[in-house]
């Protein structure tokens, strides 16, 4: 029937449309293409990583590297959905220090213990390997060793007549009050307290700085101890006193940077990227004014023997367990983490090789670019005190409960004690499953 022909033609036309519009060009056979997902937030900038990828491709003509950049918030879900595909959507991904347990349990990460050379093991910081090692097996290549730093605006402190940055959080409050009273900044301190992982990082800094901890020796939640409650109460107090910017409650780390770089705050706790960005005239209005100081601690922490406190926010690259190209991917990761590459790009990201921080290598490192003389000592001073967040497979859900508790306390919905007690109960419930 003519009409039948018409319909068939229509359907064919449709299939044709789908085919041409829908399909991306097929990959020519030849070089292998590996897909790597990483963060565009801290560490090297995409332009720089692209450069490294191109260099690698030039040295390895049979491997093509397809980099993908996403904001930190998107990466976790992308990994989960990417792994549901076969072959997986990515061959290597950047994993945050809090994810290995969850991903190892889900079977996502490739065991690379046998690929790691002794030179790598001894050359890189032990702490960086700890982040990717579980039960003696290694699941990733260290990449970015980052901690939260305490940065302040030199010019603002000078204007307020303050000679030295604060050593304790109590001192910070005094200095902030002075800055506020003199009208130099309306809200001298800015934090990343929004309902995401960032608030747990900030809380970790304060919790440990008060002599507290996330869990006790037996693994039970301990953040609802006296020290933990005090830390949270202190956070709320600074908000109530108008010393901490109220928008901290909805700010994440990029927003903290935006605020600090616009010259609106005198003190900002953030990852390393904030420092180099502060000297970038296209983004910052406070070029040359930012400085590091050791993260303050509470007086009570000092009394309890705490010498310093920060939180470990390192990230590493892991190979996906189901990738069809483990060897090529490992080659690329080795290149990324190699000493030469890391030295070259040390402005944005300090190397993970502890050998670079000793003797002559240290001098070379510090001379590598203008900011290193500042960032390297800051790193060496702060990193030893980096605390870890709990390494449990259900960390995401546990963290969500803690984020909720902190937010409830900060917005006045619940008292700090009630909020933390509830979160602790949730942690016990999760551990029991």
């Amino acid at each position, binding site marked *: *029937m003519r*009409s039948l022909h*018409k*319909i068939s033609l*229509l359907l064919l036309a*449709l299939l044709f*449309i*789908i085919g041409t*519009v*829908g*399909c*991306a060009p097929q990959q020519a056979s030849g070089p292998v293409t590996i897909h790597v*997902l990483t963060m*565009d*937030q801290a560490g090297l900038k*995409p*332009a720089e990583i692209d450069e490294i990828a191109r260099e690698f491709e030039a040295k390895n003509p049979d491997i093509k590297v*397809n980099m*993908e*950049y*996403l*904001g*930190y*918030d*998107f990466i976790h*879900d*992308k990994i989960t*959905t*990417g792994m*549901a*595909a*076969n*072959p997986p*959507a990515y061959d290597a991904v950047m994993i945050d220090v809090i994810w290995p347990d969850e991903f190892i349990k889900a079977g996502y990460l490739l065991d690379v213990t046998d690929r790691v050379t002794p030179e790598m093991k001894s050359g890189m910081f032990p702490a960086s390997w700890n982040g990717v090692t579980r039960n003696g097996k290694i699941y990733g290549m260290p990449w970015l060793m980052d901690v939260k730093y305490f940065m302040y605006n030199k010019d603002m402190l000078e204007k307020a007549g303050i000679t030295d940055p604060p050593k304790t959080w109590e001192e910070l409050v005094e200095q902030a009050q002075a800055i506020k009273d003199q009208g130099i900044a309306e809200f001298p301190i800015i934090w990343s307290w929004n309902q995401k992982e960032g608030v747990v990082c900030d809380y970790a800094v304060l919790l440990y700085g008060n002599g507290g901890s996330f869990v006790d020796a037996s693994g039970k939640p301990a953040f609802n101890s006296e020290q933990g409650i005090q830390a949270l109460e202190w956070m709320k107090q600074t908000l109530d006193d108008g010393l901490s910017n109220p928008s901290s409650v909805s700010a*994440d780390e*990029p*927003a903290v*940077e*935006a605020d600090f*770089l*616009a010259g609106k705050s005198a003190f900002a706790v953030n990852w390393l990227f904030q420092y180099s960005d502060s000297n970038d005239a*296209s*983004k910052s209005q406070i070029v040359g004014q930012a400085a590091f100081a050791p993260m303050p601690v509470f007086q009570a922490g000092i009394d309890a023997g705490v010498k310093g406190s920060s939180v470990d926010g390192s990230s590493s690259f892991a190979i996906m367990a189901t990738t069809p190209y483990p060897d090529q991917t490992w080659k690329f990761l080795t290149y990324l983490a190699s000493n030469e590459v890391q030295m070259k790009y040390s402005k944005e990201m300090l190397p993970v090789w502890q050998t670079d921080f000793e003797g002559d290598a240290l001098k070379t490192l510090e001379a590598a670019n203008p900011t290193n003389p500042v960032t390297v000592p800051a790193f060496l001073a702060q990193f030893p005190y980096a605390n870890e967040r709990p390494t449990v497979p259900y960390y995401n859900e546990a963290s969500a409960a803690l984020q909720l508790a902190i937010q409830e306390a900060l917005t006045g919905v619940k008292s700090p004690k009630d909020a933390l007690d509830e979160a602790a109960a949730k942690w016990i419930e999760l551990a029991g499953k």
Partner: protein
Amino acid sequence: MSLRKLFRKVLLFLLTLPVFFFIFFPLLWLLSASLSNQVDLFSVPIHWIPQHPTIQNYMDIFFPGQAASSVPRTFAVALLNSFKIASAVTVICLFIGSLAAYALVRIPFRFNHSMQLGIIATRMIPEISLVLPLFIIAARLQLINRPVVLILTYMSFALPYAIWLMTAYFQTVPIELEDAARLDGCSRLGILFRVVIPISVPGLVSTAMFVFLLAWDEFFYALIFTSTLAAKTVPVAIAEFVGRYAVNVNGMMAGGILAAIPPVLVALIFQRYIVSGMTAGAVKG
């Protein structure tokens, strides 16, 4: 005109002013922000009109390369992807949807009524119900990060919607015309193509517009199924601005304006069809 009438006219006019303000204030602010640089944007007190207006934000999007961050560089690609995908979805839904709609409206057969109910019911299902199984099929067929995966998954809500709208239109075609054509010896399909569709052009245009807007607007599936340049759509690109580039708000606003222009243009050009589309929906109930 009597004084009382004039008074009434003036009063009504005055009442329209707050509505105009309500509609245009956010839009003008969006436009103003897109034409600002960082200094104007982050100034206190607020600069309603930028003191140093600039089109640099738009330039960054159209002429990537000098752009500081990668999102503006890739925004133009996302715009193109959105356009491709929305167009493809619209065309396909119109084709196969009109066939189905005609069958449901005119041809009495056993499952007609239940099928119509089923199609309406699919509107109640949230996207999130479908996403995991869809992702698994798409992954197995190696369609992730390709535009075709979005085209197919968008059909899950666009096709029932299109069929629903078009059944409403086809119902308004006078049955006498179809009877006349039948008397002339037309087969069912002949009636469809020679009588019903030409008369329903307004309805088809209206449906096309609604489907296009729906596809352009979609965020959740695009977020889950795509992340590479090959298939990333505009809503995903905008979402990436938020949070990641807290500093680059002006870029995000420029992107927002560009993202809004195609659907707004489409809606304005075909605006008489919006009204008729909504009326048809109301009549159908």
